[in-house]
């Protein structure tokens, strides 16, 4: 069915924000390599991630971006999730 163009309505509908997601999303979500880890590696990565979150919190990264050495951290809590942003070479 052909649709009529209505830019005003489209502009209001933009408030939904995320508008399109691609056919390649599935392949891109796993990263370029998509490497599989062993169970032991999975545990090690999980432990390391938890440790980093803990260190970032202890360093005050919940209140804003902080720098340790040449790495900066910022920790956000959204609902039940904690999101740790790490930037290298700062």
């Amino acid at each position, binding site marked *: *069915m*052909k*649709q*009529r*163009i*209505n*830019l005003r*309505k*489209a*502009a*209001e*509908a*933009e*408030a*939904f*924000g*995320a*508008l*399109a*997601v*691609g*056919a*390649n*999303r*599935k392949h*891109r979500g796993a*990263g*370029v390599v998509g490497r599989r880890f062993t169970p032991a590696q999975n545990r090690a990565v999980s432990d390391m991630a938890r440790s980093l979150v803990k260190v970032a919190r202890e360093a005050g990264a919940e209140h804003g971006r902080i720098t340790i050495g040449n790495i900066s951290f910022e920790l956000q809590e*959204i*609902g039940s999730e904690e999101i740790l*942003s790490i*930037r290298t070479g700062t």
Partner: protein
Amino acid sequence: MLTRKMQLPLAAGFVDRRSGARVRGLIQIAVEEHLLLWTSWRYRPRDEDRAWDWWSIFQECRLSEGRFECYAALADGDLQGLMVLDLRGKRTGTGKGIIVDYLATNPANRTAGQGLKCVGIGLIAVALMRSIEGGAAGRIWLESLPGAAGFYESLGFEKQPRRSAEGNMVYTLEPAAAEQLLAEIEAQGIVES
């Protein structure tokens, strides 16, 4: 058949939701500086794209040898939207169209009465121009997130009967509608060619 060359950066005219005033902006190929601005986007728990890692998406575009292009919409000294095009394309009803692979606006623009509007429309205009420039006559193929169906339908996209493999709605734009849409977007001053 439509033919034209897109000149980047492209001057854009977004609209302040609160005052209705025109806000001048630019749309251009994204660079690292724009991705740094992305780190200041603050998502809400309900935002469908809150897990999208634009750093990774951007890096993949750069490594894609021209297949993927990442565009940034800028205004008020901030990043207002990002879009990725896949130039390898996909068949629409009448020929091959380019794919709008990712499209998102700054979460600050997602609250009624706040931020800017017409950012997504401006980015779609760039997709149209790129499709025309690449010989696809304005054809576009994309998967819409559930909340965005009204956006695409208001732009004249046609919903396809079959969903994507991931269960998303598929929309296409064909040349006649593309030409009309681009003309209306330019007439409204959302982009200037």
